[in-house]
């Protein structure tokens, strides 16, 4: 049945998930630039996701095949994000410089 290994301390994992959630909520109120908040939030989210995947979903104690299958959407997802970069620059978004509306051309 289940491989003979010690059951992980699920309550400790729960504790970490709770702490990381509290940190996430605290981070959005930090007086730092949006990019830093984004990096911190994404790090917390990835940590929480890894904890759930490795211990609750048991990946840490599974064969390599399942781990490789589970990691695939991370790679494909990264590819997705890169594919969309050209589209996200289609509209000038708020930056340090003010964006002046383009002059209307006569057709």
């Amino acid at each position, binding site marked *: 049945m289940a491989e003979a290994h010690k059951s992980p301390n699920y309550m400790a994992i729960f504790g970490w*998930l709770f702490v990381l959630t509290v940190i996430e*909520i605290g981070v959005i109120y930090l007086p730092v630039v949006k990019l830093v908040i984004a990096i911190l939030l994404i790090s917390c989210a990835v940590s929480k*996701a890894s904890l759930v995947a490795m211990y*609750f979903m048991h990946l840490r104690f599974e*064969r390599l095949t*399942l781990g490789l299958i589970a990691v695939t959407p991370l790679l494909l997802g990264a590819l997705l994000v890169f594919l969309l970069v050209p589209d996200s*620059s289609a509209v000038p*978004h708020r930056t340090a410089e003010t964006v002046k509306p383009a002059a209307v051309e006569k057709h």
Partner: protein
Amino acid sequence: MSQIAAVHPAIEPAESPLTPESWGKLGMWIFLVGDAMGFATLLSGYGAMRYGSADWPSPYDHLGIALTALMTFLLICSSVTMVKGLEAVRLESKERAVLFLVLTLLGGAAFVGLQAYEWTKLVSEGLKIYGNPWGASLFGTTFFIITGFHGLHVTGGVVYLSCMVAVVVRVRDWQWTYNVVEISGLYWHFVDLVWIMVFTFIYLL
């Protein structure tokens, strides 16, 4: 169990170091990565539209962070009770297993209830799937589509877990029962995992 299932056990000795012992577990994992790609598509599309938008409303000005934090906590607790339920099945303790599985699905049902309450509150404040009074209309569209897609997954999970409760109550072969409950647990943890991502990108960022 069907005749075929009786002849071919769910747990077979591994043919090689690469094949899993449980085909059902492999099948569920492959389904989950496909589902993950579905959510990844929605979230990256949302990201591209939000980044390319000039007037996207600030989520923490309009969405209830406190309520959503509670919902996140609820789902994390339900993941813990799921894992405890699986442990109870492993130890062949029927009452504890049923208790924890019921707690898990109640957590999921409460999550969906709170989500529905949040939706009605936001709709009454003017957030619609086709527009809102605060900025880009896609804010509402992406919000409802993504949280709705996730909420549907949680609802499906609650139904799935109710079936698992019935399976455990009528247990005959504990090894088979452990396998199917473990597989349902994988789905439930996946739903929690996706919510962690949705909460971060839609509500906090």
